[in-house]
């Protein structure tokens, strides 16, 4: 049986690693593509943008409440571990914020290729109406 300390360390580091990876991948794509593509996307998918900031709001709420409780508990017992539960919640919702903000997941139908038009593949049999040899 692993101790809670170790579980806390592994969980938060996984959350933080995913956060970093999502932002770095997003940043490398942003340098290549047109910034207007990203801005038009957050304009068209405003719900995702609002949901991202809602996740950030939950993270901040849990940070506030968790650390107020931890401050009060530290008066009697400074070795309290309640801040570890707080940190797991905060880092999880921070990860959700970054994932929704960057918009890399869930994937969209069209790739971010800087506005380059995709060549349409003609479907032969439907257009010509006869079998292709």
């Amino acid at each position, binding site marked *: 049986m692993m101790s809670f300390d170790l579980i806390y360390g592994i969980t938060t580091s996984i959350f933080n690693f995913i956060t*970093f990876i999502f932002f770095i991948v997003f940043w490398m794509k942003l340098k290549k593509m047109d910034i207007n593509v990203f801005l038009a996307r957050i304009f068209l998918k405003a719900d995702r943008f609002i949901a991202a900031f809602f996740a950030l709001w939950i993270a901040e709420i849990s940070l506030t409440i968790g650390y107020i409780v931890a401050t009060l508990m530290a008066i009697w017992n400074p070795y309290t571990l309640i801040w570890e539960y707080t940190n797991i919640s905060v880092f999880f919702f921070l990860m959700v914020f970054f994932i929704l903000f960057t918009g890399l997941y869930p994937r969209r139908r069209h790739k971010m290729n800087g506005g380059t038009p995709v060549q349409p593949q003609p479907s032969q049999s439907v257009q010509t109406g006869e079998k292709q040899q």
Partner: protein
Amino acid sequence: MDIYGVVVMSVFAILAAVGMIGTYLSSQIIRILIKHRKDNAPLTAFLLNPESSKHEIKWFLFPAVTVLLTGVFTLAQKLLGPISFTNPLIAGTFLLAYIFGILTAILVVYVVYRWYKKMKRFA
């Protein structure tokens, strides 16, 4: 209460204060975005100023880096063993995890403040 308790309590109090500011700012941003749900005016403002928007997005790079360092030092400290301030390696990783965690909280709130400043005129 010993000196350790005082340090721990002040760190918790700083984080709680930072969290209160962040809660206020992010709730204001959500309120502004939902208020302009129909016309999306704040997002239109972002769309019309691509250079400054790119600058604002670039600010999220700093919390993304500090959050990674927090995770790395937290995992290192937990893998090295129980906390002891006589061992410089364990004490160093423990303190660095604390410092980067506080830095992450402050940086996220600062970036959210920058976004709030851009959206404030639509409130």
